[in-house]
């Protein structure tokens, strides 16, 4: 093959799988704890907010945030690599994805980290 070959793809592939497994586990935990499955309970501020204000849940929610952003945006990036040939456009879209990821991470972090339950 004549075209220039570039290294890469391994870590994107590996972390897509790792974050996928973490998200699967976290989603089960989320549904179990928040929605009280298998016996559904009401999702009320009084029941949820004190738990979200604990350091443990802040760590879990930050992990959720990081994994969800990476998994989702990396998935979009994989589709872009499939369908966008132009290196210029790939670069522009990559920059946009990283920017969107950064903004969403910032918004998530300032919501999760300083959260205090006003109960």
């Amino acid at each position: 093959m004549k075209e220039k070959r570039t290294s890469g793809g391994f870590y994107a592939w590996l972390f897509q799988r790792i974050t996928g497994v973490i998200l699967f586990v976290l989603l089960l935990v989320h549904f179990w704890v928040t929605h009280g499955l298998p016996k559904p309970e009401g999702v009320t501020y009084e029941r949820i907010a004190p738990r979200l204000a604990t350091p443990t849940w802040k760590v879990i929610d930050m992990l959720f945030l990081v994994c969800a952003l990476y998994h989702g945006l990396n998935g979009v990036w994989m589709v872009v690599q499939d369908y966008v040939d132009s290196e210029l456009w790939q670069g522009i879209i990559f920059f946009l994805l990283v920017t969107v990821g950064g903004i969403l991470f910032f918004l998530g972090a300032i919501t999760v980290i300083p959260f205090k339950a006003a109960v």
Partner: protein
Amino acid sequence: MAEYTFRIFRYDPEKDETGRVQEYRFEPEPGWTVLDALNYIKWNLDGSLTYRRACRHGICGSCGMTINGKNRLACETQLKDLGTTVVTIEPLRGFPVIKDLLADMPPFHDKHYPLKPYLLTRTPPPTDKERLQSPEDRKKLDGKYECILCGCCTSSCPTYWADKNFLGPNALLKAARFLFDSRDEGFEERVNVIDDKHGVWRCHTIFNCVEACPKELNPTQAIVDLRKLMLRGRL
């Protein structure tokens, strides 16, 4: 047999701007394959029909084409097994069309060159015997060496349709055939080619290649095996 309708993709680069479908109706003889029907059309109805054929026994891989939406070898596909009397025949998808059912295969074959699809050795061979391989090591190549290069797998791969630089299931199966060969010493050279964003990591595990392979090989499994091999090498 009943009368069959053959709906065949036709394209002549000297006359047509784009492809068209031409219909032929006749009664095939019992036991005919799709290739027999194509031969009948070419020899009796329309000599201008162009397609690739050679061995007629499912060995050469020349007559891979899309038959009723599935990639198959025309010589191995019995008309009665199609379950319909309307047979649509198109050239393999994902490749440029030269004429009628003749797909241009160099984009497919070119993927093999960087992989060096032959035994690579650095150590000198034994002087009194050939390079021996244990039956257990030989068994590791089952399902990897039988490929006949028909192109049905790569042509069915949506990732290849989108990314023409993707090595494709066939070249990756070929890489696995040598990387898992106990006699081969070309590990670094081959891994450098497949460890690429257009290589082994590009596959999205769609399994179309497994469905398409007329030899019932499993390129997806070979790709997974390659990933495991490379993961172990990195970690």
